[in-house]
């Protein structure tokens, strides 16, 4: 079979692209047939009417798809000319008279423009590819932003879901703390603005038969009721009977697939966690969006003791507002109740109140800086591509000047002439849009594969009706902007001069518009590249920055403790002590310790620490419970004093609990220095400092360390619902040493208690995501900066080539008169560099002004960083020199005799 013509193949490819907008089910069922049918239609159209036929069939086919998407029910697209009406002679393009005159003109112009562009394939190719880049990149970024941030949560009336959290008067806006159970229940019972509220917290488990640690959600039984969804299988927890559903579990869709193969017989089966069976009563719907990825949900019911606890803040809460209730109304409702609680328990509520924010923000995060940055970068790139294509069309307008002048002389008005330029940009725009869709699809896949890990909802990102509509809008607006530039820069009244002057018409005005466009492109590209430079600098500095501990070579091991044998602290303590003693004798282990959490975790803070004898108190102190050896294993160095001894729970701690503090806390409470031996008070508890360690940066080197206080476990109980983590340090900083240390632990476990199950994580893994925002921002900016640089260079090349071609005659004559070749080259180079330098200066100026918006992402670099700017400037000068050299050499090779023969 003969290969179909390129127009048919291109139309099929375009339709295939659009097919990806359809729901997957339909695509899988009929996609191939739809494609085959479109291909047949296009081939028939080509046979009957040639290229115009294919274009018409292509527009109808893709238009039909878009209509089907929009209306959802399909459309009868009747033929524009029913067969009973005789059609006009071929090539006259009769149009229905009821359409607007402008549309009619435009359609007519499109046909003419298509014919004339066909003769200029290079313009068509470069123009549409450039627009495709801008449209595609912007669409991809929008898809990312939409999927990861903007898209509403998949719950009915999701805007009524709000997070409930404690806020302190010294919190930055948007920061929320956990809540105490007592306060929560008081608010739940007293509030009149909520339909339902749910209390929850997270934990981890290693179920039997699974090789990974899962995330457990401890939730008040009414979780599904508050979210407004039902389990996809089985039932939700009983909400009316406080004794129901003991040791039952609802699986996430993912865990159901992983651990039970997605079978419907899962109900009633058991998941063994914490050495006890938990009965599966339901499966959560796919795509349950929660602040963390949840694997399984178990019911949480508070005890009477917990219900009355108003002090510790340990639980998360969210609720569903009653219809029509505003966030403000609900906030004042809860605050009134909270004020009453604070009056009854002033010591734990000084400066605190309750706050509400959208639950969506809780789920998707508040990363506005990265969001803004992406939007800016994509927008700037789109502007660059527009400027680029506008200057291409400008050059094209130059070559059409005589034709336009003739048309103007024959009575065509300004509108008519502007439409004829719009028609050309419309063709470029539509082609660019179709190609841009391909760029967007590739770009989305690329972005997700690079950033999937650091995004909250990677599965939600893709092309869909919303992002498709945005792409369509982009095509329309770029087409309009790009097409108006050449049309409007024509001075219709002076076109007559063109005819009088022949080919040597006045060109200065037009080429200065083009120079402005090039300078703009370079300036915009410089902004992006210098932003990327600052972020690159930041990631380098962060990678080398000291976090106050040494993640390399350390590994955290999580033990599943059978509840019956290790229920109480003394037994747990004895086990860990034996384990650590056995491990210390192993050659693979350089240091071992245990603690409630591993660095850099900064969760769980407490308030009201003061040095004895002082009234000044310190809040938001990170409180850790650790054993001797913890600091050595974590690689946290002592600055003064030493660690405490092993403390049994039975040890009398009535006098003062020995503690280690970090430098930050020592400096805050004992500004005069010499913290070792001093006493710290918190309520009626007393602590005595035995040593001071360097401060661990809990939230990355770019965020100041929080004050921290390490008290001895098992003498002091662990924070809420966690088990001690064993921290092992191998003999060196390699992954092999880490696995050797783990192997040693397995050996020791075999001896001491073979029933103990083990999960592990290297400390470096716990750092993943610490610099997520910076890495994300940098990678993204790098991509955009690279594209911008390339487009800027293409822009310079285009303008210089054009000027050279324009001046070929003049150059030829000068060379015939004896001008040296070198001088011609230098002159052209100078011209190109002048434009570039103007762009660089403007761009760096703008970058310095805009740099402030990057501030929160930068570390160790000022927003106006001269070395970075210098590098960026030289990159552009070098690139421009290369881009100019090619046309410059061409100019120097002009043959003088040919130059004379030119018109």
């Amino acid at each position, binding site marked *: 079979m003969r290969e179909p013509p390129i127009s048919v193949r291109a139309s099929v490819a375009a*339709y295939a692209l659009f097919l990806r907008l*359809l729901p997957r*089910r*339909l695509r899988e*069922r*009929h996609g191939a*047939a*739809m*494609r*085959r*049918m*479109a291909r*047949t*239609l296009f081939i028939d159209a080509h046979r009957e009417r040639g290229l115009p036929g294919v274009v018409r069939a292509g527009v*109808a*086919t893709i*238009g*039909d*798809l878009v*209509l*089907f998407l929009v209306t959802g*029910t*399909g*459309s*009868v*697209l*009747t*033929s524009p000319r*029913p*067969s*009973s009406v005789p059609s006009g002679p071929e090539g006259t393009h009769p149009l229905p008279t009821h359409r607007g005159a402008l549309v009619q003109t435009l359609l007519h112009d499109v046909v003419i423009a298509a014919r004339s562009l066909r003769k200029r394939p290079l313009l068509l190719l470069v123009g549409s590819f450039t627009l495709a880049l801008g449209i595609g990149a912007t669409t991809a970024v929008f898809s990312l932003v939409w999927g990861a941030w903007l898209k509403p949560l998949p719950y009915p009336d999701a805007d009524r879901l709000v997070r409930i959290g404690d806020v302190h008067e010294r919190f930055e806006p948007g920061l929320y703390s956990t809540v105490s159970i007592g306060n929560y229940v008081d608010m739940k019972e007293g509030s009149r603005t909520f339909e339902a509220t749910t209390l929850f917290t997270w934990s981890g488990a290693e179920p039997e038969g699974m090789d990974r640690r899962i995330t457990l959600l401890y939730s008040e039984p009414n979780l599904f009721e508050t979210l407004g969804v039902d389990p996809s299988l089985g039932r939700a927890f009983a909400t009316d009977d406080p004794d129901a559903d003991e040791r039952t579990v609802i699986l996430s869709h993912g865990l159901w697939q992983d651990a039970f193969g997605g079978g419907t017989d899962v109900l009633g089966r058991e998941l063994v966690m914490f050495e006890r069976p938990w009965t599966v009563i339901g499966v959560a719907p796919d795509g349950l969006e929660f602040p963390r990825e949840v694997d399984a949900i178990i019911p949480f019911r508070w005890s009477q003791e917990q219900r009355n606890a108003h002090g510790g803040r340990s639980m998360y809460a969210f609720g569903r507002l009653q219809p029509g209730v505003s966030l403000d109304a609900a906030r004042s409702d809860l605050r009134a109740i909270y004020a009453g609680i604070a009056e009854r328990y002033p010591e734990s509520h000084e400066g605190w109140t309750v706050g509400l924010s959208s639950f969506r923000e809780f789920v998707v995060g508040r990363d506005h800086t990265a969001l803004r940055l992406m939007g800016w970068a994509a927008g700037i790139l789109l502007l660059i591509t527009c400027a680029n294509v506008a200057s291409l069309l400008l050059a094209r307008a130059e070559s059409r000047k005589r034709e336009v002048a003739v048309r103007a002389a024959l009575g065509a008005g300004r509108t008519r002439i502007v439409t004829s330029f719009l028609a050309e940009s419309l063709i470029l725009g539509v082609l660019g849009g179709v190609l841009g869709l391909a760029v967007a699809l590739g770009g989305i896949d690329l972005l997700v594969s690079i950033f999937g890990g650091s995004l909250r909802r990677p599965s939600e990102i893709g092309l869909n009706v919303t992002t498709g509509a945005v792409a369509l809008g982009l095509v329309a607006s770029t087409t309009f902007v790009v097409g108006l530039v050449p049309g409007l820069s024509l001075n219709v009244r002076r076109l007559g001069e063109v005819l009088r002057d022949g080919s040597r018409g006045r060109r200065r005005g037009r080429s200065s518009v083009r120079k402005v466009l090039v300078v703009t492109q370079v300036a915009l590209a410089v902004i992006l590249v210098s932003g990327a430079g600052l972020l690159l600098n930041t990631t380098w500095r962060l990678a080398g920055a000291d976090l106050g501990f040494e993640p390399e070579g350390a590994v955290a091991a999580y033990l599943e403790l059978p509840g019956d044998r290790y229920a109480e602290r003394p037994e747990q303590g004895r086990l860990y002590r034996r384990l650590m003693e056995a491990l210390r004798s192993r050659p693979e282990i350089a240091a071992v310790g245990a603690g409630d959490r591993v660095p850099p975790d900064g969760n769980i803070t407490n308030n009201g620490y003061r040095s004895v004898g002082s009234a000044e108190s310190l809040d938001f102190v990170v409180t850790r419970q650790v054993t001797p050896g913890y600091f050595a294993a974590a690689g946290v160095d002592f600055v003064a004093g030493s660690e405490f001894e092993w403390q049994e729970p039975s040890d009398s701690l009535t006098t003062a609990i020995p503690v280690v503090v970090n430098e930050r806390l020592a400096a805050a409470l004992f500004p005069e220095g010499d913290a070792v031996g001093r006493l710290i008070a918190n309520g009626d508890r007393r602590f005595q400092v035995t040593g001071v360690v360097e401060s661990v940066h809990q939230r990355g080197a770019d965020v100041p360390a929080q004050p921290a206080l390490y008290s001895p476990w098992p003498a002091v109980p662990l924070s809420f619902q966690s088990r001690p983590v064993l921290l092992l340090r191998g003999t060196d900083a390699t992954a092999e040493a880490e696995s050797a240390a783990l192997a040693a632990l397995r050996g020791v476990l075999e001896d001491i208690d073979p029933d103990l199950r083990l999960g592990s994580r290297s400390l470096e893994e716990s750092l993943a995501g610490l610099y997520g925002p910076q890495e994300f921002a940098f990678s993204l900016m790098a991509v955009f900066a690279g594209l911008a640089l390339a487009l800027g260079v293409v822009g310079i090349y285009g303008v210089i080539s054009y000027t050279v071609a324009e001046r070929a005659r003049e150059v030829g004559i000068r060379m015939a008169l004896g001008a040296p070749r070198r001088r011609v080259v230098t002159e052209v180079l100078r011209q190109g560099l002048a434009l570039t330098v103007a762009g660089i200066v403007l761009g760096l100026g703008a970058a310095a002004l805009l740099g402030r918006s990057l501030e929160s992402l930068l570390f160790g670099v000022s927003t106006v960083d001269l070395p970075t700017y210098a590098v960026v400037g030289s990159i552009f000068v070098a690139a421009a020199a290369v881009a100019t050299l090619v046309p410059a050499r061409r100019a120097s090779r002009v043959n003088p005799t040919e130059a004379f023969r030119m018109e």
Partner: protein
Amino acid sequence: MTPSSDLEQRVGEFLPLKPVWLQMLLALAGGVRHGYAIRLEVEERTGGAVRLWPTTLYGSLAKMSDAGLIEEADAEPVGERDEIDRVFYRLTPLGRTVLAAETERLEELVRLSRSRIAAAER
């Protein structure tokens, strides 16, 4: 034959029938067809006034088969352009009932319209 009230209600949900669906059901009332054959038939019957472009055609086929109006049938090739499409469809009893009900509805409309026009001319 009086359809049960349940069936009646189901049929009622489809009325008035979407124009595309009517055209496609009408084509299938003539026998087992695949997608492309449906397009050809509709185009021929309407003298080219109604053309079913691929997305509407296959999108509607999917929706009508989900709705139970049509179902896949064993191949009974009509010979034309079989390389495009190998899935054949036929009306289900529900589809046939819906088509009949729609025809009745249209008949009613035509009768009413005729009588009004006649009255106006008098």
